[in-house]
């Protein structure tokens, strides 16, 4: 389980996160919504130590993420991450993209790593692209490749940072379908997203962020049908 307590994050003078408290349970799907600049992506970066924090704490399965003695490389294997920009490695084939980290980070044998990679790529529907280079894939395919790459590390949590925002509209569906599939299989997911349909249908809880504060969190029905906060109401009126 992920426990965030009193989390503060500054970028210089900019106070991006102003005291976040949040628990995410195993098997839960949490969608994080809010306008850009509300600090929701920064929250994800604080969860796997891509960003340092100024106050508070983050614990993943009881491990203090920001403690000095924590091995972040080991920790990050628990937390798969998918970015807005898919960041496929252009110099490696699709299969090598996925197999590299299991091989050099988890220390799997070449055969094991490639078998795992192939399995995950088939899982996201890229079984016929193994020998291709990423440059020959569409944005949607590259984003699914990024998901397979994260899954191959057998993470216990998946963090999605606006995974569909950079895609052409007609490619959004295939990536959302893949995320939905993961949710149905019981993966614990935190999805920063602008896709309200996805947030409504797939997530167990939805959190609304406004100017560095988590204004509201609750089941999708509550957030979308009966929002408590004025800010949430305004935001939803604008996006829906």
């Amino acid at each position, binding site marked *: 389980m992920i426990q965030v307590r009193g989390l503060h994050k500054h970028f210089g003078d900019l106070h991006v996160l102003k005291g976040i408290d949040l628990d995410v349970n195993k098997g839960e799907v949490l969608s994080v919504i809010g306008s850009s600049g509300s600090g929701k992506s920064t929250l994800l970066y604080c969860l796997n130590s*891509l960003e340092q924090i100024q106050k508070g704490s983050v614990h993943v399965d009881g491990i203090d993420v920001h403690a000095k003695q924590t091995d972040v490389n080991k920790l990050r294997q628990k937390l798969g991450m998918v*970015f807005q920009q898919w960041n496929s490695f252009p110099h490696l084939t699709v299969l090598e993209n996925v197999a590299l980290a299991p091989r050099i980070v*988890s220390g799997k044998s070449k055969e094991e790593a490639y078998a795992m990679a192939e399995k995950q790529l088939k899982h996201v529907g890229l079984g016929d692209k193994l020998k291709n280079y990423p440059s020959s894939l569409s944005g949607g395919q590259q984003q699914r490749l990024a998901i397979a790459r994260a899954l191959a*590390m057998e993470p216990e949590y998946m963090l999605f940072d606006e995974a569909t925002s950079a895609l052409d509209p007609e490619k959004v569906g295939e990536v959302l379908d893949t995320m939905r599939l993961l949710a149905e299989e019981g993966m614990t997911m935190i999805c920063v997203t602008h896709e309200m349909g996805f947030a409504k249908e797939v997530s167990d809880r939805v959190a609304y962020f406004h100017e560095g504060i988590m204004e509201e969190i609750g089941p999708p029905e509550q957030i979308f049908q009966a929002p408590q906060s004025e800010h949430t109401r305004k935001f939803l009126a604008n996006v829906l």
Partner: protein
Amino acid sequence: MFDYNFHWRPVLKTLPDLIQAGLTTLEVASLSMLIGIVLGLCLALMRMNMTGPLKWFAVSWIELARNTPALFQLFFFGFGLGAIGINLTPYTIILTGLSFNCAGYLAENFRGGFQAVPDTQLKAARCLGMNAWQAYTRIVIPQVFRVVYHPITNQMVWAVLMSSLGMLIGFRELSGETQFFASRTFRIFEYFAVTAVLYYIIVKIVLAASRLLAMRLFRY
């Protein structure tokens, strides 16, 4: 117009020696490129990531190598070090001088290469649990090499051409060997004409090899 009698026979007789010397040229150029690539990579990383004396050292090296003549650099490793009691052989002088020069130029190429690889690549690699060393060697540097491949090829051609300075410090690579024979036979024009052709061929071979290697290396 021509009352000059061309004598090609002595040149052709010594052609095997010249070709042998051409191989020495290739050897010196390749070795100094290898050293230059390793040092240049270190210098680029030092210039980008360090502060204080290490950065200062890298910047001085790079700027001295780029802003003084290669021949000056050879003189420094020859006469200059000789003055403080370090006497290098001509082979070592040319190798050190060329490596020093190539490292300086390549460092700037590498710096451009690192800037061309988006830092999100590094982030993505670290997110998969790779440590900094793995992320650099597996993800960033292979992409940097693709960016700097063409400049490296150009630098290799420069290294071949620059090695001809061996002639001025008594090293018998292709130019030095040519001068040796030319001064013995006084067929200066003939010897240097043949050598010019040999250099042209060497450069074309280097470029062709680079193109072949690129086809094998970069399939993406």
